[in-house]
């Protein structure tokens, strides 16, 4: 029975993937892609990975979807060439087909081999969990055992935001904040904001012991910021370059600072002081949540500020 559910999920997944790539309308393609993200969240739950399910729903489907839809609105003026599937004479088609089929064949061959991993890394995780300062293994891995990865990953996020602001500054269009037309909606959103903020903080707090953590909390916080922006409160904060960039680097700076402290005491980079790892992890996660929320929000915001300039000439 369970296998039937799994197989059905896989079929839906592959169907949605094909639809999102080969449907004629770009808008529908993006919609199918977002739907695929939601189905993926279900798949992650079936894979006993609730953390990823949360992240997939919030970041993979949510944020990516919003960004794609937003981009779509700006690409309206461009020539939308529908995918030309029937051009069998094109070498590109055959190259794509052979590559795709080759990848499937090779991967299927590779994963059909029986597995007997020589190293049991998961045992090491559970053995060292008590010294990590948190009780949720994934948080322990992300912010203690492999915190160096996470540090670089946050740098990647800051970098992406930086490219966005680099390309924006050549535009002269300032952010135009249009108030929502419906006062009822306005009031509702105002009410929602503190609730979403609370949810975000709960996710962060819960991350120490159960699924949740800085990245999921950050994505939710970004949603809160977007609402905050839509109801038209204090958006000039986001237009000030210093606050904008300060918000991005706050988490990274805190991380680097906490990580470098042990160097002064003759210990390796990113070592937490004995028995206080939990507090430091929470501190770093708080910084990361705020920064991630802010970065994702400013991606949204920066995209608002550069509308496609309509030109008469082609």
């Amino acid at each position, binding site marked *: 029975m369970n296998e039937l559910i799994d197989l059905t999920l896989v079929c839906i997944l592959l169907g949605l993937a094909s639809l999102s790539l080969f449907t004629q309308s770009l808008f529908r*393609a993006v919609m199918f892609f977002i739907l*695929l993200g939601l189905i993926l969240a279900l798949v992650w739950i079936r894979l006993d990975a609730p953390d990823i399910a949360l992240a997939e729903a919030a970041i993979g489907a949510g944020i990516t979807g919003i960004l794609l839809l937003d981009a779509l609105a700006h690409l309206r003026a461009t020539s939308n060439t529908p995918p030309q599937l029937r051009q069998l004479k094109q070498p590109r088609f055959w190259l794509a087909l052979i590559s795709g089929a080759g990848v*499937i064949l090779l991967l299927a061959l590779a994963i059909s081999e029986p597995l007997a991993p020589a190293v049991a890394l998961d045992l090491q995780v559970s053995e060292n969990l008590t010294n990590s300062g948190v009780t949720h293994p994934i948080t322990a891995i992300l912010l203690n055992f492999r915190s160096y990865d996470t540090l670089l990953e946050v740098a990647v996020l800051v970098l992406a935001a930086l490219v966005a602001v680099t390309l924006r500054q050549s535009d002269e269009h300032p952010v135009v904040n249009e108030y929502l037309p419906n006062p009822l909606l306005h009031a509702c959103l105002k009410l929602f904001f503190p609730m979403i903020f609370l949810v975000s903080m709960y996710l962060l707090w819960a991350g120490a012991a159960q699924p949740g953590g800085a990245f999921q909390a950050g994505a939710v916080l970004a949603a809160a910021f977007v609402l905050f922006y839509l109801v038209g409160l204090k958006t000039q904060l986001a237009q000030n370059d210093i606050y904008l960039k300060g918000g991005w680097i706050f988490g990274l700076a805190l991380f680097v600072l906490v990580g470098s402290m042990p160097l002064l005491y003759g210990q390796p980079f990113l070592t937490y002081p004995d028995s206080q790892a939990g507090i430091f992890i929470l501190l770093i996660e708080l910084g990361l949540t705020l920064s991630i929320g802010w970065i994702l929000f400013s991606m949204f915001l920066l995209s608002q500020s550069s509308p496609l300039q309509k030109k008469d000439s082609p």
Partner: protein
Amino acid sequence: MSSYLIFAYGGVGLCGIGVFGFILHTHLLRRLIAFNLLGSGTFLILVGLSQSGRGEADYIPQALVLTGIVVAVAATALALVLIRRWAALTQHATLPEDQGPS
């Protein structure tokens, strides 16, 4: 077949479809969607296959996938910024070499 392995095969399918779409499409937005499918497929293989070897949840690949998702979102966001800027400058959503005679 364990459900972990089923999803690993699902990941293989996603990767294949992703590669096919990535090479076939010239529209940059579609290519970006294909890249994201390819990424999701890879993540499914990473978690599904590792867990099918052990027969239980393995937190290491799960943590890696969390990192991977965030990196993928950053890359996607960056690509979208570039694509939009490109479209604003040229009114095209494809690269010059793919625009063909029209």
